[in-house]
């Protein structure tokens, strides 16, 4: 009986040791890969946000130029009418 107990304890210890030592763990290289991919993604997302803001800025500039051109074309028409009336 005592022998059996000793054997069981021994087996349990071996099992625990083997379980703890066989658990999967990422290697240094894998950790580096994940961290770098994450950093690159975050950086790219930040750049994307900046590009979106830049694009919106350009859209505003283009809209302002369109309005300026429209106003100028009206002005041109008014000057033309003014000159016709003066003649």
């Amino acid at each position, binding site marked *: 009986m005592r022998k059996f107990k000793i054997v069981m304890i021994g087996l349990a210890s071996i099992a625990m040791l083997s379980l703890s030592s066989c658990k999967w763990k990422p290697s240094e290289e894998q950790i580096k890969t994940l961290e770098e*991919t994450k950093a690159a993604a975050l950086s790219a997302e930040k750049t994307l946000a900046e590009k979106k803001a830049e694009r919106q800025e350009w859209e505003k500039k*283009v809209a302002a130029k369109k309005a300026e*051109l429209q106003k100028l074309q009206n002005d041109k028409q008014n000057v033309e009418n*003014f000159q016709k009336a003066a003649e």
Partner: protein
Amino acid sequence: MKMRITLIVSLFLSLLLANVVLAQQSYNYEEMTQEQYNALLAEWQKRLDAAKKGIAEEEAKIEQLKKEYDNLQAQIDQTWNEIFTLAGQNKEQYDAYNSKLSQLRDDARAFLNLSPEEIYSKSNELDSLQAKLDKCKQNPFSAMSGPSALINEIQSLIDQAKEKAKTAVPPTYTVMKGDYLWKIAGKDDIYGNPHAWWRIYTSNLDQIKNPDLIYPNQVLAIPRAIGPNEHLVQKGEFLSKIAGYPNVYGDSFKWQKLYEANKSFITDPNLIYPYQVLKIAR
């Protein structure tokens, strides 16, 4: 003792270093399974690819917008040239025209800040401002929205100044039985000073031939301000002194011109009185 302190400091620095190293890692890799690792890597790779794609798209849009902007600018420049050709003027003349309008607006604003009496006394300058604005209205650039808005603003300011000056236009007094100029001038709501009868007389020369003779129901002007081309005689003044004022003739030898313009009530050029209102002939 020194050894102890060195040991404590070393221990502290080691802990700090360990924290820094651990903080650089986002995940608890000790507890991570292979499936979790793969899922995380795939997710970050997906986000990276999506962001890269988005950046490329945004850059393409920006390039397109820049081209559109340049194209619009070219059209604007072309339209300006067409306007200058139509107006028969150039950019420098357009800029000068706008500067002139801005100056007129400043002048009109300055006028509006004056008291009604001051505006009334400078009404000839206000008329001159109106004349300058009318001339600006003849320019073809006046048809453009920018200058047109400025012209409307100036016109509004001039109109407001004219309205304001109206409150300083001489009020009137209707002569009652028993009134005489000395008595009227002495009334508190007129000048409160009988000696100012000269002012009533010289301001109503068109209807008072003899200051001793006024009639009931005659409506007399009671000026509150000095009009343009007028001078209110003060104590101690004489014709050559007044003629020498810069706002009169700036030349005391022109006193005769002053005398000629006011001969109807100045019998002796060496004798003028306070409160007489002299006309300044230009």
